[in-house]
């Protein structure tokens, strides 16, 4: 395998890792910020107000 292909493959796996981490972050934010379950709402209430996410 040439160095160029190795670099290309490494760069591709890097991009997949980056996309995966970004997706994880957005999932956490979506569940924590916008999901409307009652338990989550009570836990999140003060902080949702504090960061200006719509709460109720």
């Amino acid at each position, binding site marked *: 395998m040439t160095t160029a292909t190795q670099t290309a493959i490494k760069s591709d796996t*890097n*991009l997949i*890792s*980056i996309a995966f*981490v970004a997706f994880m972050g957005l999932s956490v*934010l979506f569940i924590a910020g916008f999901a409307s379950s009652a338990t989550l709402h009570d836990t999140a209430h003060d*902080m949702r*107000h*504090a960061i*200006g996410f719509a709460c109720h």
Partner: protein
Amino acid sequence: MLKNLVYSALFAGLAAGIIVAALTISMLVPLLLEAELYESGMLIHFGDVTVPTPDIEVEHDWARNGLTALYACTIYIGFAFVMVAAMAFAQEKGVRITTRSGILWGLAGYAAFQLAPAMGIAPELPGMIAAEITQRQIWLVGTIIATMVGIAAVVFGKNWTHWGVGLVILAIPHIIGAPHPEVFGGTVPPELAAEFAGRSLAVGAVGWIALGVLSAYFWLQESA
């Protein structure tokens, strides 16, 4: 790569979350508790009749504050995952990341997640009247995405087309306009609401700058 990304995001998010939790509990929670006294009718004010500023010392509920701190760390870890991913992606594309440029990354995140949304929907206290929640959430998500894309186009764009498109994308949510309530008449005094909105944006700015610097710091450590 994946391990480095996850570790640096966890460390940065946790550290920034602790800072934000401390600021939120000391600066914002007292105003939330006071607003709840108006929401529940314990305190009352009317628009055109002045009432003395209540001389109350709100009592912290530390179990509730514990949940707030836990949640602050959770949401900042979420922010940190997005931040570190964005930094790593930029680095792949040849952008140099430093702890000092982390300040700018933090400010960009702040603009996307708090400042731009606040232009349409100011941080709200309990007992305020607002538009229907789903509509507000849709506008918030749209504004966050548009602001992230717009800032990226303006910062990393190479010509007037990129910059122009970036500026238009930044403006679109505000041209569409945020959903607003059909009536006014919240239970909370406007003085309290304004104080809360200002403080909320200030705490957010501190939190996001800390997050940007910490994300850059831990990412540089982990990926070195």
